[in-house]
């Protein structure tokens, strides 16, 4: 059993969170397809987006989600939802970092430039609802 607690399987919890994320992305009207285990990447979920349904033309838009449930049952989860197309690369993250105060932040870069960071407060730490919050934010940012 993974994780540091005898009764907590962090890998199983991360697996369930990623499955929930994939399920919610599949339900979103902008998402045209998702890839995650067993078909696709082994440890993250990638969604292909049809941003033209928002009236925005982008080239190869994708959202990549990662989730780690934490080393113990009481630990905070660590996660990220990162958008990319051929020109832009930005996303909402929740993990320890040294750029801004707190764990929640938005990071963005254009081309090969360095990321810029700003604090972000997530409304929840449950992956299901977070997907919809992120997709709503994404529609404004894209």
């Amino acid at each position, binding site marked *: 059993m*993974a994780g540091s607690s005898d009764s907590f399987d962090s890998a199983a919890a991360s*697996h*369930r969170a990623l499955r929930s994320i994939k399920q919610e992305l599949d*339900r979103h009207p902008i998402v045209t397809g998702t890839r995650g285990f*067993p*078909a696709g990447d082994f440890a993250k979920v990638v969604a292909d987006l049809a941003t033209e349904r928002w009236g925005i033309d982008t080239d190869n838009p994708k959202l990549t989600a990662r989730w780690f449930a934490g080393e113990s049952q009481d630990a905070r989860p660590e996660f990220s939802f990162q958008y990319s197309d051929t020109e832009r690369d930005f996303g909402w993250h929740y993990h320890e*970092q040294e750029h801004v105060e707190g764990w929640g932040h938005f990071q963005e870069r254009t081309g090969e430039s360095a990321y810029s960071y700003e604090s972000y407060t997530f409304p929840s730490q449950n992956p299901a*609802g977070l997907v919809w919050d992120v997709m709503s934010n994404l529609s404004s940012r894209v």
Partner: protein
Amino acid sequence: MTDSAGVEAWKEQTTAFDRIQSVASAVSQPQPVSYIAAEAHVAENTARDHLTRLVELNVLLRSDQDGTALYAPDPLHTRMQMLRDLLDEHDRDGLIQLKTSLQSQIEDWQEQYNTESPSELRNRAAETETAAQTREMRNIASDWELILYRLSIVEDAIENYNTYSKDFQLSA
């Protein structure tokens, strides 16, 4: 309080049952009706009815703590769900290929970090020189644990392939 645009969209595209199932299936620790109802944006009475149904369907487990009902995903259901996904996606040869790919990924990490297990890598992450290296090693350790979990289910699917993939229509 007014719902955010994201919540509004979620409610438009899903039923209360969908949201309850999705929220409750992803909790890391057992949660009461109030938490699940709030996260799924449904009334507590509605949530209670749906949670009872999900327990009857063996999707969730119910426990009681100081008189409060708590709900958590049934690990057996999670495993069976994964087995069904695997068998829908792959035949036996495909499962063996998938197992090989997962094992290769683990062997790459063992070689790259000269370590045998994700817990060992996590311990070593504390000794790196930069925050970026620490974060990278901790992320790899998390992915490694996840892949080990998934590998165990792939091995189960291969070992019991004939039993799990029996077509009831052929024997009808």
